[in-house]
């Protein structure tokens, strides 16, 4: 591969790469505000300026400038190299680029940073971006000098509501235009633009419009400073108290990679941030998805219950045992959930097909919904593909409703509380539900066992493209909840069976055999095919 040299380090590049993109791919960061790997390059922040050495024998590109001689107090004419924006300069074979090693580049960064802070308000103590703000990082790295301008800064609108989700602070804005370009290039809704010039610049919403749609949160996320904030996260938490776990969005079958930010002191999730994955979501997430972090707390089943009355888990297991003892297995059904991890569904499949010996397997989940051609998938379940791989012949939820109505099924063990269609007829069956969130299947259940949500245990999910992705544990289990596979092991023990899984690694070991890693050519699950 062709290479160029950045500060003496060889950097390979592909045709069409800019200097900053090739360096970024190698993990070398050239400081920047306006450049974003997923957006076009306007080269307007001037932070990524680099010095390009002339080819041997060629005249360098230079500028005539006047330099103040501090001793004499006189200006004298000198020449300095003309710097180039690394985000716009195409990489070329043998190019010699100087960044951190060039005094001119360091000087330019210092001066650009000084300009950007010229009118910046003293907002760090009240700014949600503080702690993850590029202005703060670059000041310490490249500027380090105190303010020289002591005039009143230019004042601009603060706390402007751009729409139902986003608030804009004009004084904090560095005019990188990332939000404008995101709405135009990715969300395909050019609703933002810039008005005025120079230090009167500000970002505005098109007249008669507001910033709405399905991708407004991303404008906040691409903002390198605290100019855009979401109403959801605004003034809720300070980022240096938050810890982050790599997670997978549970909002739909796309399976966007995300960071789940939580405060370990309160065991509370605060936000989702997109986690870059070129193969799935690139750098983006949708609003609905980013808000699903709330489901770690909202609508949760936290206690075991019997006939809607709170019980200890042990009492509920007793009741489940009483319900399911002596029942002929051809009238017992298990309902897998497309919203639960492979591990949870595997445990239920193992209990139903192997230990209990029923052949009635159904799948539940959420009904389909809105879709677009950017990220949002019509299937609102995170693991539909995984469940299909686990039990290829599983019947639909509608079939279960019919079978219960026809009295072919009288006892049901269900994973998850949600149902894609009206689950009312299931009231006729004796239902044991293991669920993290309340729903039709927990309301109809005789026995409910609390499960942890995706945020409280590590689980594998297969997205619509068939990619297996792991969402890691962030929070400690809430209430009396346990991972569903653990509750299922306890249920199996209560029913008099010996579960083969005690730890997560037992299940993970089994899963490797039951579906191929990339899932493009799913093989039949071993135990189900043996039935």
């Amino acid at each position, binding site marked *: 591969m062709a290479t160029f040299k950045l500060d003496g380090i060889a950097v390979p590049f592909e045709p069409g790469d800019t200097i900053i993109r090739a360096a970024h791919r190698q993990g070398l960061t050239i400081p920047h505000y306006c450049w974003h790997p997923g957006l076009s390059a306007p080269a307007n922040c001037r932070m990524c300026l680099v010095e390009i050495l002339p080819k041997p024998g060629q005249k360098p590109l230079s500028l005539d400038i006047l330099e103040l001689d501090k001793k004499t107090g006189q200006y004298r004419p000198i020449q300095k190299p003309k710097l180039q924006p690394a985000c716009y300069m195409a990489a070329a074979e043998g190019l010699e680029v100087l960044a951190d090693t060039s005094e001119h580049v360091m000087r330019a960064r210092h001066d650009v940073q000084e300009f950007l*802070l010229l009118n910046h308000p003293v907002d760090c*103590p009240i700014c949600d971006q*503080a*702690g993850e703000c590029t202005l*703060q990082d670059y*000041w310490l790295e490249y500027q380090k000098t*105190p*303010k020289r301008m002591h005039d009143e800064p230019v004042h601009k609108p603060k706390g402007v509501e751009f729409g139902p989700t986003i608030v804009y602070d004009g004084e904090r804005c560095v005019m990188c235009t990332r939000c404008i370009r995101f709405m135009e290039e990715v969300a395909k809704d050019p609703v933002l633009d810039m008005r005025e010039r120079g230090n009167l610049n500000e970002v505005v919403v098109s007249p008669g419009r507001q910033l709405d749609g399905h991708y407004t949160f991303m404008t906040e996320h691409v903002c390198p400073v605290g100019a855009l904030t979401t109403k959801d996260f605004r003034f809720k938490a300070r980022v240096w108290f938050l810890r982050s776990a790599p997670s997978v969005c549970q909002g739909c079958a796309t399976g966007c990679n995300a960071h789940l930010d939580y405060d370990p002191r309160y065991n509370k999730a605060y936000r989702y941030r997109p986690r870059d994955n070129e193969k799935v979501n690139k750098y983006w997430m949708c609003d609905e998805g980013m808000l699903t972090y709330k489901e770690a707390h909202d609508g949760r089943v936290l206690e075991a219950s019997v006939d809607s009355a709170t019980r200890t888990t042990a009492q509920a297991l007793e009741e489940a045992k009483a319900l399911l003892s002596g029942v002929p297995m051809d009238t017992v059904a298990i309902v897998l959930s497309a919203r639960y991890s492979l591990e949870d569904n595997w445990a239920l499949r193992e209990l139903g097909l192997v230990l209990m010996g029923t052949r009635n397997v159904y799948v539940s989940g959420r009904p389909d919904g809105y879709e677009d051609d950017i990220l949002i998938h019509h299937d609102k379940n995170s693991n539909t593909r995984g469940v299909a791989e686990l039990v290829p012949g599983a019947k639909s939820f509608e079939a279960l409703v019919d079978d219960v109505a026809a009295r072919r099924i009288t006892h049901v063990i269900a994973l998850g509380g949600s149902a894609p269609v009206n689950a009312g007829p299931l009231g006729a069956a004796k239902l044991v539900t293991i669920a993290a969130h309340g729903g039709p299947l927990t309301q109809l259940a005789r026995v409910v066992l609390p499960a942890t949500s995706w945020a409280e245990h590590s689980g594998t999910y297969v997205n619509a493209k068939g990619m297996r992705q792991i969402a890691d544990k962030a929070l400690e289990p809430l209430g009396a909840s346990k991972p569903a596979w653990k509750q299922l092991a306890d249920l199996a023990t209560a029913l008099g069976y010996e579960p083969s899984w005690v730890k997560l690694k037992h299940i993970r070991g089994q899963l490797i055999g039951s579906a191929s890693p990339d899932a493009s050519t799913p093989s039949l699950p071993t135990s189900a095919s043996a039935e």
Partner: protein
Amino acid sequence: MEPLDVELDEGELELPAEPMHLNMGPSHPAMHGTVRMVLELSGETIAKVDVQVGYLHRGFEKMCERGTWAQVFPYVDRLNYVSPMLNNIGYALAVEKLCGVAVPERCQWYRMALGELARISDHLTCDGAMAMELGAFTPFLWFIKAREMVWDILEEETGARLTHSFGRIGGMAEPPTPDFKKLCRAALPQILHLLEEGERLLLNNRIFLDRLENVAPISGPDAIAMGWTGPCLRATGVAYDVRKAHPYLKYDEVDFDVPVGTKGDTLDRFLVRLGEIRQSKRIIEQALDRMADDGPVNCDDPRFVLPPKSDVYTTIEGTIRHFKLIMEGARVPAGEVYSYTEAGNGELGFYLVSDGSGTPYRARIRPPCFQIVGGAQRLLEGRMLADIVPTFGSLNMIGGECDH
């Protein structure tokens, strides 16, 4: 009480043949610093002694790995808590060595003056308490009166009498107060006067001298072999003082002598400390003479030193600098360092490892009295029970720095 009517000859007394076991400490008035000695006595002679440290162990080094580099200062206050300023300076110098920053000259003189004041307070406390434990209460009160004068100055400078937390990476928390020089110059003669009075009272007292002289001596090579430093080593005649051997701050620019003993006994350890108080006075006087009355105390490196408060409240640059240093901590370049200074008890070393973040990756201390307490057993075995009190007092074990 009636006199015994039986005439008892010494030889007729049936003394127990079994050695007697005795616990001294950890809560015992003479076991300062909460140390425990398990003694095996043969009569009043110490057959065996097991010196057990660790009763003041707080996991100081581990605690350092939680906060920022600057948040270590309150912890080092509580190492040798009789001279916290010396620990502050020692730690600051260690971090500065790792960062490659040097503090301005004014700050160096200021640190020397404050440090020597702390040394005076350390030695006064040690010698005073030792005398008191032998029954000489008056000199103790005089020495403590002198120490109060030192603490008054330190309180004026730092706001705290004991745990100052006054050191900073790249400087001190505050510049010297306008009256600092005046206060020192007024107090030092008074301190020395009190010292001389107490000294006269003690060194002309036969009982006091008998309890110290030739008690628990140690030779220079033995002391070195055990890693002793500080006054206890110098009492054996080895003139090793970090300030002379490896000068830091401005110690190579001032005149002072290193008092040494000859026999390495308890009396020598007592006298060396008295001598060092006089030398500290000399150093302070020279430091005051040479310290500028104005000029910066902190180096102006935004990576390590907080900006002026007025800047923090009015400019974004100041706010960012403050925010970065407080919330994320000064980022100390990755690497490791061993830095050592002469503290009250000897060579106080800090071994620090940085991974380049705002939090120490590892902080390790070499407390001078740890090695010294390690030699206590050797000094005490074969001596009388009553010798423990002056001998242990002269070693100046401080639990806060010893237990780590």
